[in-house]
């Protein structure tokens, strides 16, 4: 009988998160390769090659959520990384510096000994992709330079117009093939195209069940608390090409469906208003951002951020154009009008009364468009919105009291609109 048989989704989540890190540590101990990868770089190639994967963004988010970011940010600051740099990058650079020091001296620096960070090994190579941000290029190039390891760059250009033109898909598919060639050189063996097909199939099964979870927010009242997507997304990022994600997401989606049938909703009978969250979570203050809305009876029933990993493609397409399209069409890699369309659809599906925009100091790409995005969307559907200043992993940028005031005002506006209807 499997160790995970009958395990609840929440337990599966913790189990497989730890297992993925353990896999990497075991691989390192066996002398096998470990890759650090950008979160929406294709995972399929390394998994096909049997390379253990670690995702610095997810790892940094975990450090932030466990209140360990400040220590790593301090290490990065001492190394000269400016506070205007992405805090994921700074936390990761801080962590890498600690691991590097431990590798050189044979002794873990005290800051690492006391850190709540998940224990992951140093990489033997890195893969990055610019489909969610360009900082990732310099960040990963820097990792590679600091550690003197290979850096595979997959160029996925920004889409200034939609739909995605064929030449763009062809270019990105070539980028994929180039990455595969580089992996063949690094690993010293040919790419297994048959296994690649299995990995693509696996990825699609994970994505299918991930989408089943997100789909549950369309019901009113909602069986899904949207903040749970932030918790579960660790696996869609880090394990989507393994069955770890599929098993966990299927269990969670099944639980939610059973709850819906039984009339069990996320907020019991307390759901009053529904909102969309736009932007990355504020990991160091995840509990506060959630509880503030929950205490006001406001439930998140839509968010485009976890939807970045809605990477549906045709696994049988050997041209890789379908896969290329999936990895380039994610909304923050597209023009403003498409971003607006994506958010409007999420709002409609989630029967949303208003939106909270996270103006994230770290994530310029997502945040700088938000001011304009918010105005356009309000002009279309008239739903109120509010924005607040924060940061994904730098706890110092967020002010709990300012967040509470803005969110409460939004809820009051949403309630007034509902009362007027």
């Amino acid at each position, binding site marked *: 009988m499997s160790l995970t048989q009958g395990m609840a989704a929440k337990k599966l989540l913790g189990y497989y998160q730890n297992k993925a890190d353990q896999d990497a540590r075991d691989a390192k101990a066996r002398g096998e390769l470990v890759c650090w990868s950008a979160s929406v770089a294709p995972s399929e190639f390394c998994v096909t090659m049997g390379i253990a994967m670690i995702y610095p963004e997810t790892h940094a988010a975990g450090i932030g959520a466990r209140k360990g970011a400040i220590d790593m940010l301090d290490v990065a600051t001492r190394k000269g990384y400016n506070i205007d740099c992405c805090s994921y990058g700074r936390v990761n650079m801080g962590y890498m510096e600690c691991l590097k020091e431990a590798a050189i001296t044979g002794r873990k620096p005290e800051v690492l000994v006391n850190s709540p960070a998940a224990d992951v090994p140093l990489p033997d190579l890195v893969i990055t992709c610019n489909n969610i941000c360009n900082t990732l290029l310099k960040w990963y190039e820097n990792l590679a330079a600091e550690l003197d390891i290979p850096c595979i760059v997959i160029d996925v250009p920004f889409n200034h117009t939609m739909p995605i033109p064929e030449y763009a898909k062809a270019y990105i598919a070539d980028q994929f093939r180039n990455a595969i060639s580089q992996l063949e050189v690094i690993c010293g063996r040919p790419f297994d195209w048959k296994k690649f097909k299995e990995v693509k199939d696996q990825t699609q099964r994970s994505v299918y069940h991930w989408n089943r979870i997100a789909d549950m927010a369309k019901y009113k009242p909602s069986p899904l608390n949207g903040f749970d997507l932030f918790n579960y997304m660790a696996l869609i990022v880090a394990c989507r090409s393994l069955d770890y994600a599929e098993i966990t997401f299927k269990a969670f989606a099944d639980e939610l469906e059973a709850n819906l049938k039984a009339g069990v909703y996320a907020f019991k009978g307390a759901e009053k208003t529904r909102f969309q969250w736009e932007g990355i979570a504020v990991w160091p203050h995840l509990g506060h951002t959630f509880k503030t809305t929950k205490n006001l009876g406001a439930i998140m029933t839509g968010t485009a951020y976890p939807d970045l990993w809605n990477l549906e493609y045709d696994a049988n397409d050997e041209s890789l154009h379908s896969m290329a399209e999936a990895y380039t069409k994610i909304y923050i890699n597209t023009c403003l009008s498409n971003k607006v369309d994506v958010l409007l659809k999420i709002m409609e599906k989630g029967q949303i009364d208003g939106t909270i925009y996270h103006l994230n100091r770290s994530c310029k790409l997502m945040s700088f468009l938000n001011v304009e995005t918010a105005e356009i969307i309000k002009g279309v559907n008239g739903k109120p919105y509010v924005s607040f200043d924060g940061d994904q992993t730098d706890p110092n940028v*967020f002010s709990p009291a300012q967040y509470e*005031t803005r969110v*409460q*005002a939004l809820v*009051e*506006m949403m309630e*007034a609109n509902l009362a*007027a209807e």
Partner: protein
Amino acid sequence: MYTMGIDVGSASSKVVILKDGKDVVASEVVQVGTGSTGPKKAIEAAFEASGLKQEDIAFTVATGYGRFSLEADKQFSEISCHAKGIFFLVPTARTIIDIGGQDAKAIRLDNKGGIKQFFMNDKCAAGTGRFIEVMARVLETTLDEMATLDELATETAPISSTCTVFAESEVISQLSKGTSRNNIAKGVHMSVASRACGLAYRGGLEHDVVFTGGVAKNAGVVRAVSSVLKTDVIVAPNPQTTGALGAALFAYEAANKK
């Protein structure tokens, strides 16, 4: 029926007691805010002024940053309370500029007093009362005197930094160059006004424009806001207490629903 609104801000505590949702029977301000004895003192002052006791109050609503720090029947955001209070006082108000101790906000109202949109300052003291307070200290004057200095200005000494710390250095530099304190005071007020008015422009300016919050008591900032917006602004009566007034109005509505 008597209802009470308490606005516990960052720099001051305000209490308004209303009779039957329309007559103000007490309106008190204590110049210390959340985390201090200010709220308690303001409540005591309101009871003394009105001759009422706690048991006479049918419903209490708290607002402001310290709204969860005291016992009240309900809490509302200061955005909703300022909107409520201003619309009660000035029914023609469509744009509200509120500058308090650590917040600046612009609120757009519809013709029923509903909030169409609002914008607040980011996590920064620029464009708030705290900015003026810091600059007053450098100018070796009081907050109350800042408007007087401004009135005597012959020109505006530009304060280009929006950051309070950098602006403070800029003011010191202006002083060392011999720029008059009057002109600097005017520059400080223009800096605050341009920051706050930027929020108002974001929501689209619609008349009447009403200026409220503690900073609206400073005639220099009122002139600056009017100058930046290139239009007349109505200063709310008792601008420091409009949030508390709105809270007392919400309290009256809630009491009637009970």
